[in-house]
């Protein structure tokens, strides 16, 4: 009886697995916009400003403002780094009182509650990284209505719910960087798998969708094998990556790590399986976590923008918005030591090209 049930379940699983094996699992269903294979920048159509505006904000020009930063979650390396950037910028500016607070897990409801509380407590500015672009919109709009300046970074909301969004790198840009790196390491016909956080995490889902589109366009013979979920959990990521290695054997030439947790864990799995050099790990990660693998040569390159810079830029942008120096329609903004940053897509500010860490430069970073 028991065994029959089990067998039936497994059978069911098999069938559903095959049925769904057509596309890449883990991507979202929004429109993709793959870049050209040779890297020619896409002709960016100038878009009008599509961000929102605070209702009757007080004149904050040059005055001391309180700013709260509510990232997706607190307690992970990545948002520690952005938080550090924000604190750095605040210290440099001198007239900002900034702090970071947020939920302990990437939970839309809790994030909304945090934002709501800070709106009530009367902050002047909000920095956020959205767990869900739509879910967060109502509370951000409420902040705008209260005259609070709202700037996003890392993970966007719907544009009208915030003023500006500091985009660390465009989705298609990241996708191209990742897929190109992988192709360079494993060749045009290699098989690879993806370890992501969850299928519902917007950025990851977006990247995977863009990667799929770009790979189809520019590296059509590369073979996507599988996408697995691993939360933001080190050990689970490690286990999942190890299982992938065991399952596909030589068929698996590379693993994409889609989060700053999954990438080092995948590298660890490759290391512990003694497959360094046989299986490439390409992914998004922070340099500190990757140093051991990069220095040992197990991982050649890690793609990431500098999250400290991202936080720094977000804080600078918020200050400019509060001061009124950044107005809708601007094409660039001054961001302290980062210099002039470009405005794209109407109301987004581009941090720059993604940074590629390798054996030579990784030692210089500490975050």
């Amino acid at each position, binding site marked *: *009886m*028991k*065994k029959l*049930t*089990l*067998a039936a*379940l*497994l059978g*069911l*699983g*098999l069938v*559903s*697995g*095959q*049925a*769904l*094996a057509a596309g890449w*699992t*883990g991507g979202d269903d929004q429109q993709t916009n793959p870049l050209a294979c040779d890297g020619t920048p896409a002709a960016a159509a100038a878009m009008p400003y599509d961000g929102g505006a605070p209702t009757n904000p007080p004149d904050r020009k040059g005055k001391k403002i309180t700013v709260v930063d509510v990232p997706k979650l*607190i*307690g*992970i*390396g990545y*948002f*520690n780094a952005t938080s550090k950037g924000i604190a750095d910028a605040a210290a440099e500016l001198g007239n900002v009182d900034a702090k970071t607070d947020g939920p*302990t*897990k990437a939970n839309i409801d809790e994030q909304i509650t945090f934002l709501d509380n800070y709106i009530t407590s009367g902050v002047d500015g909000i920095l956020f990284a959205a767990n869900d672009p739509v879910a967060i919109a109502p509370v951000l709009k409420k902040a705008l209505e209260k005259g609070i300046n709202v700037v996003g970074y890392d993970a966007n909301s719907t544009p009208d719910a915030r003023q500006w969004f500091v985009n660390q790198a465009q989705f298609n840009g990241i996708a191209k960087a990742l897929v190109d790196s992988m192709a360079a390491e494993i060749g045009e016909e290699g098989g690879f798998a993806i370890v992501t956080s969850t*299928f519902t995490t917007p950025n990851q889902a977006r990247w995977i969708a863009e990667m799929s589109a770009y790979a189809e366009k520019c590296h059509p013979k590369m073979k996507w094998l*599988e*996408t*697995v*979920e691993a*939360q*933001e*959990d*080190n*050990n689970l990521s*490690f*286990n*999942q990556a*190890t*299982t*992938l*290695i*065991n*399952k*596909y*054997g030589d068929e698996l030439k590379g693993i994409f790590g889609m989060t700053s*947790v999954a990438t*080092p*864990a995948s590298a*660890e799995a490759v290391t*512990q*399986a003694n497959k360094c050099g046989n299986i490439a790990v390409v992914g998004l990660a922070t340099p*500190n*976590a990757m*140093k*051991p*693998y990069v220095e040992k040569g197990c991982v050649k390159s890690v793609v990431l923008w500098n999250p400290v810079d991202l936080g720094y830029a977000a804080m600078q942008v918020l200050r400019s918005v509060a001061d009124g120096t950044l107005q809708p329609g601007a094409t660039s903004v001054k961001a302290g030591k980062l210099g002039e940053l470009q405005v794209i897509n109407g109301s987004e500010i581009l941090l720059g090209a993604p940074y590629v860490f390798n054996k030579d430069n990784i030692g210089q970073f500490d975050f």
Partner: protein
Amino acid sequence: MSASASIAPPGRSAFQRFLSGYGQEIVVFLSIIFLFVVVGAINPRFLSDTNINSIFAGNAYIAVAAIGMSMIIMAGHIDVSVGALIGVIATIAGTLAVNGYPVWIAWLVPIIFSMAVNAGVGALVAYTRIPSIVVTLGMLSILKGGLISATAGAWITNMPAEFMIAQMRPFGIPSAVYFMVALTILASFFIKYTDFGRSIYAVGGNMEAARAAGINPERVVVGVFALHGFFAGVAGILFATQLQVIQSTVPPNLELTVITASVIGGVSILGGTGTVIGSTLAAILFACIGSALIFLNVSAYWLRAVLGLMILATVLADMARRRRAK
């Protein structure tokens, strides 16, 4: 009313005793064998020594934590804070190791800390009679919040190689597997052959009767929690040393996994019954299922649903078996 079942001749054979004592464990064990056979037939790589190694090693820390959890549940209690505690232990261990303390201190101090914390929880449960689920629910909040306050989630890296005990591979087998096996055997032995071990069942089965039999139930409860602290401590060390990086956060849903392992392994949530072998087998079964689903190309979207169905099937099979036994 149980006439037919119980007219057994006095003193049954050792084999009969074995069977009657390990009903659910056998179900779980057979499930593992079944998975190995079926999945192995479909994809022989499932049975490669590396994959078997990773199945056993991957969930070893869960199995170790489930040993302690099983004892807690046998004694009629529960601990929903074990996941948070393991996170805290891993962080303490990693911090000590990175700051140059000898590795044995980095291993031992967190375990002692874990035992002390849980003994405190046990004392609160035993002497104030607050239900353990309430105390540990509170502890979950305290440990989780406290950990984040203390570390701000900074990752711990660059730990010395000799600290990474879970990565050592004596005779080609991950050391976590040795821990899992040794502690399971040791705990079974302890439960079977010591007064304290037997009194866990007694306290879980009937607290007042235990008192009348000369057992001090409060002391047993504190002891069981402290023991659970020991296993959680070892689990935390294995967890911390499995990878080069310690996240210093609370591993998500770990407490549910650990409790599920104990329960699927045959520990009755009502207390008084169960074995630790069952929970270890269940932890291995989970690793098996997780691995098998990937090997069978079960769409990752449906993975959790299949897992839930499997838990349900196991539970219902157990219920049917118990009903038949009656």
